[in-house]
């Protein structure tokens, strides 16, 4: 790879965003509200990228909060009951989530779009019910329980440190997805997504690849769940809520489905819009604005904000002629 190839506008843009993200805590300074927004934004970038990875294999999920919550509960229970450090239990939570994810994946590999959407949605409802009823002695039921934070609050400037920890994990996740999608695994997933029968004919067995995508997506979602809990310092069954299943979908579609940058851009844009509208005092109005935005994007910009420059270019080119 020579330098000319590396210095594409895309890569330069990515590098600029990376440097900006690294410098952000210094720009924001001691504004704790903005730092919290940024940390949550990063956590949701991880989570929506995980959801989006599933769509690379042609699968989709309406209940990804199940994996977010499973990771969160496994990680926080391991921290509280076994006294393990959060950075270790994050991985444990992810692994537990991946294990359950593969079990669900096994039931799902044979199912078509709507059926898959139903099963994943139902699964989140079932898990939440289990957590608040039969498992309540362990999980604290609807009340939940307190957990320590990822960086102890006694350390000065802990929120800045937390930002960098989450940032590092987000970058690692994105690099992992990038490398995977460029590898033979990524090619196989694309073949399965485009036409499963033809992929089979080409000698690709879709089942292990689909399970891998499900497991990895659940693993990363579980890590995002752990991060969210260790950020708030408290866990309740609301983590399985329908809203938390829908957010990664909204972020990914807004940014651009099936692209690596889509969930990142979508999360940033929608989160900023969301918190901006909140500052303006539009509690319900912001949901409506997001809903309208979603409908408009699906109809008029089906490939998301990522494709916006290209679409504008097309329009201008046509006018020029």
């Amino acid at each position, binding site marked *: 790879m020579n330098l000319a190839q590396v210095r594409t506008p895309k890569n330069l843009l990515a590098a600029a965003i990376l440097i900006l993200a690294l410098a952000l805590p210094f720009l924001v300074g001691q504004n704790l509200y903005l730092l919290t927004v940024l940390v949550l934004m990063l956590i949701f970038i991880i989570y929506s990228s995980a959801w989006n990875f599933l769509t690379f294999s042609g699968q989709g999920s*309406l209940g990804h909060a199940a994996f977010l919550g499973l990771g969160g509960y496994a990680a926080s229970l391991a921290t509280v009951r076994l006294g393990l450090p959060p950075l270790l239990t994050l991985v444990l939570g992810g692994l537990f989530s991946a294990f359950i994810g593969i079990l669900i994946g096994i039931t799902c590999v044979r*199912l078509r779009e709507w*059926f898959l959407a139903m099963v994943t949605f*139902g699964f989140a409802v079932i898990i939440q019910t289990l957590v608040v*009823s039969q498992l309540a002695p362990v999980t604290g039921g609807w009340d939940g329980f307190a957990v320590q934070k990822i960086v102890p609050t006694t350390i000065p400037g802990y929120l800045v440190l937390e930002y960098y920890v989450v940032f590092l994990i987000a970058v690692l996740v994105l690099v992992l997805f990038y490398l995977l999608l460029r590898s033979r695994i990524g090619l196989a997933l694309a073949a399965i997504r485009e036409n499963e029968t033809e992929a089979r004919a080409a000698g690709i067995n879709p089942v292990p690849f689909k399970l891998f995508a499900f497991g990895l997506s659940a693993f990363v979602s579980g890590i995002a769940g752990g991060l969210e809990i260790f950020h708030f310092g408290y866990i309740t069954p609301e983590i399985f809520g329908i809203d938390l299943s829908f957010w990664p979908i*909204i972020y990914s579609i807004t940014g651009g489905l099936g692209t690596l940058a889509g969930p990142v851009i979508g999360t940033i844009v929608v989160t900023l819009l969301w918190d901006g509208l909140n500052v303006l005092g539009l509690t*319900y109005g912001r*949901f409506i604005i997001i*809903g309208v935005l979603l409908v408009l994007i699906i109809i008029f910009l089906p490939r998301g904000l990522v494709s916006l420059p290209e679409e504008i270019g097309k329009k201008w080119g046509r006018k020029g002629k």
Partner: protein
Amino acid sequence: MDGGIAVLGQVAFWGLYSGCIYILLATGLNLIFGVMKVVNFAHGEFLMLGTYITFFFFVISGFNPYLLLFLSIPILIGAGIIVERLCFRPILGTGKLNEIFISLGLIYIFQNGVAMVFTDEWRSMKSPFADLTIGIGPIQLPLDYIIIVVITAIILVGLSVFLDRTTTGKAIRASSQNRKGAMLMGINVERMDMLTFGIGAGLAGAAGTLWAVSGQVFNPYMGSVPAIKGFAIIILGGLGSIPGAIIGGLAIGMVENFTAFFLGGSWKDAISFILLIVVLLVRPTGLFGEAGE
């Protein structure tokens, strides 16, 4: 012992009643799916709109709430037609996931639009017959529940007469059986899409009125779970089959109420999905579903 049977009978009747709501939702979803091959996950928002229309006009007019069916159904038919024209027609045939995603946007718009007007607190209303019960053997049945079962039956019979006997109904069935063929016979399938979507929304509106009249609580966010259960029902009963929707709706209503009775109320929602997952494990295309679309 006699008391035990009475309680079980009561639970079965609750099942029948909640089954009625599910049947109306599932039949509407099924009609829409049959003609357009589209799944509207925002269908529960029509149910929610139905409850609020009933609530609003009941409070300002004081009419018998059952009469408000004649208001909620037409309004929702109109709403359904508008939603189809503006949101679903542009994405028809662009990929199966898009319709799920566009429903998400609609869910947000409807839920919070209503929340802006009525706030998001739980509400309920009292039917004028709320205190009347009818005794059948050892079982005491609330009059409202009996009326609701009868009204559901009347609506379903009316719908089947419409579909079987009228020209428009036949055109809808033709578009559902073979879209291209129907087009070649001079049927305006896009108009049928709009009409079917409207009828589906109207059925959900009727379910909304019945929900409110029965004294169940509602808030702007109540629609999602019943609608997704309605979809679970049509997967169980077979996509596109109306008798399947009726049997599936009754089955889910019964199973839910017996589970809530034996295992506790928190399992009421989860059980229908457990049932769905078990069925899909055995038969990936649903109980009566066909292998194709």
